[in-house]
C-alpha cells in the first residue's frame, strides 16, 4: 500500500532510471507505471465526486462575447444517500442580432434559477419535501421559462441553450440550438449526445448535402430552433446514465466548429486534469483562428 502512495505522490525522491526505451511510446510499461495505473484504477471515491471545470474566450475575430455559461456541482452525503447534483449550461447568443449577449445571459440565469428553486425544498427544507415533478419535467419547465424571459428581456434576439442536469447517476440534457454535449470515453470514443437544430445538419441528415459541404455552407449558422425565437418551442430532452469513467463536455460552436472530434478527445484525455483540458481546448480553438466565441464545460464523475 505504501508503495502505491509513494508511486502516486513520489517521484521527487528518486527519479526513475532513464533508459533508451523511455522515448519509445510503445515500450512496455515500467513496473512503477503499472503500479500507478493499478492504484488509480482501484481508487474509490466516497462519496461519489462530481467535479467540473470550464473555459471561455471571446475568440480572435469577434469583439463581443455573446456566450454565457453556468456550472454548479455539489454533494450532499450522509446516511440518506449521497446523490451527486450538478447543473451545467452553455448558451450562445445569436450573432447579427442585438442583445445576443443579453439573451444568453438571461437563458442561463433563468434556467439555473428555476432548477435550483425546484430542488431547494428537497435538499434544504426541514423536513425534506419530495419533488413533485420528474427531472425531465423540471428541465422542460426551466427551458420554457427561459424562453418566456428571453422574449421579454431581449425581444428579437435568440440564443442556444444546452443544459445538463445530473442527479445521481442520471444525466438529463435539455437542448435547443447548435451548442453541443459530448460524452468522451478513456478509449478515445467520443459520442455526440445532442442533435443540432441547424438547417445544414438537417440537410446533411437528409443526404441533400455532404458533411464537407455543410462545414462551409453559407447558411451553416442558421438554426430552426432557438430560445427567444417564435412563439412555440420544442426542446429536446433526454436522460441517460452519466458517462462514468469518462467525461461530459458541453461547448458552443466556437469550439466544435473548428476542432475535430479526434482533436477534442486527444486534448481532453491528454490533459492532467479537467481545468487544464478546458484551457487547452480554448487555446486550440483560438489557434485554429478563433472565428467565434468559445465556451466549454467539462464534468467528471469519480466513484
Amino acid at each position, binding site marked *: 500500500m505504501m508503495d502505491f502512495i509513494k508511486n502516486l505522490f513520489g517521484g521527487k525522491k528518486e527519479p526513475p532510471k532513464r533508459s533508451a526505451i523511455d522515448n519509445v511510446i510503445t515500450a512496455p510499461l515500467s513496473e512503477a507505471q503499472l503500479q500507478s495505473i493499478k492504484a488509480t484504477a482501484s481508487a474509490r471515491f466516497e462519496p461519489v465526486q462530481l467535479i467540473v471545470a470550464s473555459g471561455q474566450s471571446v475568440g480572435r475575430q469577434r469583439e463581443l462575447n455573446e456566450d454565457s455559461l453556468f456550472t454548479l456541482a455539489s454533494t450532499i452525503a450522509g446516511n440518506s*444517500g449521497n446523490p451527486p447534483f450538478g447543473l451545467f449550461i452553455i448558451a450562445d447568443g445569436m450573432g*447579427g442580432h442585438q442583445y445576443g449577449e443579453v439573451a444568453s445571459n438571461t437563458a442561463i440565469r433563468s434556467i439555473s434559477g428555476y432548477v435550483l428553486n425546484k430542488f431547494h425544498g428537497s435538499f434544504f427544507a426541514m423536513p425534506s419535501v419530495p419533488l413533485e415533478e*420528474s427531472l425531465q419535467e423540471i428541465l422542460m419547465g426551466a427551458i420554457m421559462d427561459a424562453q418566456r424571459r428571453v422574449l421579454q428581456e431581449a425581444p428579437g434576439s*435568440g440564443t442556444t441553450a444546452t443544459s445538463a442536469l445530473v442527479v445521481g*447517476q*442520471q444525466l438529463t440534457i435539455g437542448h435547443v440550438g447548435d451548442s453541443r454535449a459530448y460524452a468522451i470515453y478513456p478509449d478515445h470514443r467520443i459520442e455526440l449526445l445532442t442533435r443540432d437544430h441547424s438547417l445544414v445538419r*438537417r440537410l446533411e441528415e437528409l443526404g441533400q448535402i455532404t458533411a464537407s459541404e455543410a462545414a462551409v455552407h453559407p447558411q451553416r449558422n442558421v438554426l430552426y430552433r432557438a430560445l427567444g425565437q*417564435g412563439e*412555440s418551442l420544442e426542446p429536446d430532452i433526454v*436522460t441517460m446514465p452519466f458517462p462514468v469513467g469518462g467525461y461530459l463536455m458541453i461547448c458552443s460552436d466556437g469550439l466544435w466548429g473548428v476542432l475535430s472530434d479526434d482533436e477534442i478527445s486527444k486534448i481532453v484525455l491528454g490533459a492532467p486534469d479537467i481545468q487544464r483540458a478546458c484551457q487547452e481546448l480554448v487555446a486550440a480553438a483560438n489557434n485554429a483562428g478563433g472565428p467565434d466565441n468559445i465556451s466549454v464545460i467539462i464534468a467528471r464523475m469519480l466513484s
Partner: protein
Amino acid sequence: MGSVYRARDLHFPNVIKLVAVKEMINQAPDPLVRQTIVSNFEREANILATLSHPAIPRIYDYFSLDNRSYLVLEFIGGHDLEVIISQTEGFLPEEQVLAWAIELCDVMSFLHNHKPDPIIFRDLKPSNVMINQHNHVILIDFGIAKVFQSGQKGTMIGTEGYSPPEQYRGEASVQADIYALGASLHHIVTKRDPRLEPPFSFNERPVRKINPNVSAELESVINIALQYTPSDRFKSVEDFKQALIAAGRKTGLLNRINVGPSVIVQGNDIKPLWVFKCEDEIRGTPAYHNGSLFVGCYDNNLYALDAAEGKFQWKYATDGGVVSRPAVFEESLFFGSEDKLVHAVNMRSGKVVWTYATDGRVRSSPRIADGHVFVGSDDRMLHAINLATGRRAWTVDAGGEVRSTPFVTPDLIYFGAESGDFICANFNGNIKWRFKAKRSLTSSPWVYKDTVFVSSVDNHLYALDAKSGWAVWRFRMDKPSISSPAVADDMVFVGCSDAHIYAVDARSSKEIWRFKTEHQVNGSPVLYKDALYCGSIDGNLYCIEYKTGRMRWKFNTKGPITGTPVVYDDIIYVGSNDHLVYALLA
C-alpha cells in the same frame, strides 16, 4: 413587420364597402435600399393587380407614405386554414380537404401558367389560405411582403416548415409550390404543425399513423408531393390535381359515398397448435421450463402440461385461485395462491415440497435470487423466504398490498404496492429508497440501464433512477394502468386501461406509437424477435411490429386476456378467461 386592417372605402359614402389594407413597414436604414424595396413592392403590386381569378383577392390600390407602404385589397370574410385546423375538434373530413386541395391546384395552375412569366407563389401554407363564407379557397399574402424582409441579416431564419429542401439553395420552381401544397395538406389532415417539427421530416410522420381515417390513396398523393428530390414529385400542379381526383374517385369520396373504415389485417386463419381446457378462468401468466408449461388457474389448480402437444402431465390443488406465475429453481416450482400460501412443488411429480403462510392472498409472482424466494402478499409485506427450508428470512412492510412482481438485480429488489409506494430494498431487507406515486402500483417494474420503469393507476408510466428513486420522467396516459412494462432498444412498451398499447422512448419519454385495441389492456406485453405480443380484455392476442406499431395479426379467444404471453422457441403460450390455454406459432 406589418398589419392588416379592416377598412371602409369612403369613395362610396352611401354604402358600406369593406376593404383590407395591408401595411408594410420599410425598416431598411439605407435610403437607397429603402427606395429599391419600394419600387420592388410597386412592381409586384402591378403584377397582382392584373390577375383575375376567383381564388385571388382583387387589388384596388397601393401607396407609400413615409417608411410605410400600403396595399388596398378585397376584403375576405371567413377564416384562414390555420385557424380552421386549430379550431376543429378531431380531424377535418377527407372529402372537405380534397375539395379545397383541388381548388388550390386550380389557382396554382393559373399562376404557374401566367404569361409572360410564370408566378411561383413560394409561400403556400395554411395561414395564407382563407376559406370564405362560401367555403371556397382564397390565396392571400402574395409574398409581396417578402420584398420588405430582404436585407435583414442574422443567423436565424424561421424555417417555414412548408418549404422544400431546394428552396434553401435559392431555387424556386413549380416543384417548390407542389411541395408546399403537399406540406399544407399534411398539416391539415394530421394537425401536426410542420413548423414545430424538424425541417423535412414529413416521412417520419406518416399521415395514416396519425389520422387513420385518411385513405391510403390520399396519403400516397401527399407523399409524392413531399418527395425530397423535385423530379420525384408531380411534374405540374395539373398532375397533382388529377391524382387528387383519382384518389377521390377511388375512395368514392368525390361522389359523397361513405365508405366504412378500412379493414386492416385479419388473423382469422391463425390456428392454434393446441389448446388445453381448465375448469375456470386463467388470469395469470404461464411459465415454460424444459419442455413443460406450468399455468395457474382459478379452478385452484396449478397445471403442468407438455409444451409440445398440450398434454396434461399433472395438477396440484391449492385452496384458492392461482394468478401468480410460477418461478422455477432447480427441481422446484414456486407460486402463490388466493389461499394465502406460497407453495413449493416438485416440478416432475407435482408433490408439495413446502408451503409458507402469509396473512393475505398471494397474487404477486415470486422471484428467486441469492438463495431466497421474494414474493409480495396482500398482507402488505414483501416476503423473503429461504429456498431450501421454506422459512421466513425477513419481511418489508410496503404500506399496501404487494401485488406487483419484484424485479431483482444482483444486489437490489424493486417492487410496488397498492398504497402507491415504490420500494427499493437490499438483500437484507433494508429499504434503500422509496418513491410515492399518486395511486397504486400494481404493475411489475422492469429495470433497464439504471432506470426503473413502472406504470401506475395514477395514469402515468414512470421512469425512476434505479440508484436513488428520483423520477426521471413520467409519461401520461389517458387512464390507469396495471400493465407491466417491457423494454427493448431504448423503447418502453406498456398497456393501459384506455385500450392502448403504448411505445415510449426510454430516453426522451416521447410517444413513438400507440396501438388501439377494442378494450382495456390490463395484461402485459412481451417482446420476441421483432414483434410484441399482448392480450386485451377484448379477447384478442395481438402481434405487433414493435418498431412501428403495425399489427401483423390478432388471434381471438372467447374471453378477456389479463395475463402475459410467454414465448419460447417461436411458440407463444397464453391463457384466457375462456378457461383455455393456447399455443400459437409466433
